[in-house]
């Protein structure tokens, strides 16, 4: 496989291979927390943050502990536990140093642990055999991509409130249809760069 520069991966993760719209990861919180731009933005930021940190930490753990001992199959458990710990730590950190941010976004933090996009990114970087730098940029890019999409969706949903939607499609139904259309839009970029 040819070597992609971390910057390329970063932008590819945001646009052409958006974690949410091309892999449909992190759908659950995407559906439930995309009602308001403000909260969506808060959650998006937190996800970006956690993604960047966990991809770095998981990379280190994987290549210094799991691989040398030949227990790569434990990666699912180990990765998730690590994500949980990082989220906990982050929560304490924010609570201590910025109560304003803690209140704005604090309630979304615990949710992130179970966001499958986080685990997905860690697993992808292993499968695609990224280097450390590539992984970190991949993590940050995926996070930003996720943020971009959830904020866009929240913007659309805020406007949808005033529209007449057929009763059967209200709520999750219309959101899924819109994400489908958005996904097609994003896939349109994919000719530019391809990262699997």
């Amino acid at each position, binding site marked *: 496989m040819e070597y992609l520069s971390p910057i390329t991966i970063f932008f590819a993760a945001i646009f052409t291979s958006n974690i949410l719209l091309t892999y449909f990861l992190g759908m*659950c919180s995407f559906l*439930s*927390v995309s009602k308001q731009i403000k909260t969506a933005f808060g959650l998006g930021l937190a996800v970006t943050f956690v993604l960047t940190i966990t991809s770095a930490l998981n990379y280190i753990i994987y290549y210094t502990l799991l691989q040398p001992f030949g227990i790569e199959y434990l990666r699912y458990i180990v990765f998730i536990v690590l994500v949980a710990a990082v989220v906990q730590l982050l929560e304490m950190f924010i609570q201590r140093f910025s109560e304003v941010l803690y209140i704005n976004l604090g*309630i*979304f933090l*615990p*949710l992130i642990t*179970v966001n499958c996009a986080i685990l997905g990114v860690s697993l992808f970087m292993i499968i695609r055999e990224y280097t450390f730098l590539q992984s970190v940029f991949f993590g940050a890019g995926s996070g930003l991509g996720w943020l971009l999409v959830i904020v866009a969706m929240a913007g659309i949903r805020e406007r949808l409130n005033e529209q007449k939607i057929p*009763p059967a499609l209200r709520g999750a139904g219309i959101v899924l249809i819109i994400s489908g259309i958005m996904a097609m839009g994003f896939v349109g970029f994919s000719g530019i760069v391809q990262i699997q």
Partner: protein
Amino acid sequence: MKQTPGEQQLEIRFRPGQITKSGFMGDDTRHIHDIIEADGKVLERFGLKKADIADRLTLFMDEGKKELEGKVDLGEYVVQVHWARGLMPCPFGEPGLHPKVVVHVFSKASRQEIRYSQLSVHMIRKHGFWGGKGSVFRLEPIDVIRLLKMGGNGE
């Protein structure tokens, strides 16, 4: 769908003894949002908006308040209001407090009565929430619409 901790907080405030004696849910096991959605559909069927109902309920409340505690005869309806001192928060948790006002509206024609509080009116207007089934201040949208003779004939 997963619940945010914020929503769990929300559910706690709806429980008995938190803001009101027996809570807002009654024996309804549905999610708050599902209750709101189901009641909203009833209104839609009659082509009514939350504000239409809330405005009408407020109108009766204001007429009743003028008579202090006595009964007010409004022709088709008899209204009576009880106003206790003190203020209470809304379970949805936004800032602001509501007076403890209970309104009885009796329809002479149908010989039926509805009872609601000033907080109920606020919750209908702002949150589309009519109370869980079986809760003490639950208003059944269909009953209210019929009693107040609002909207067309639905269906």
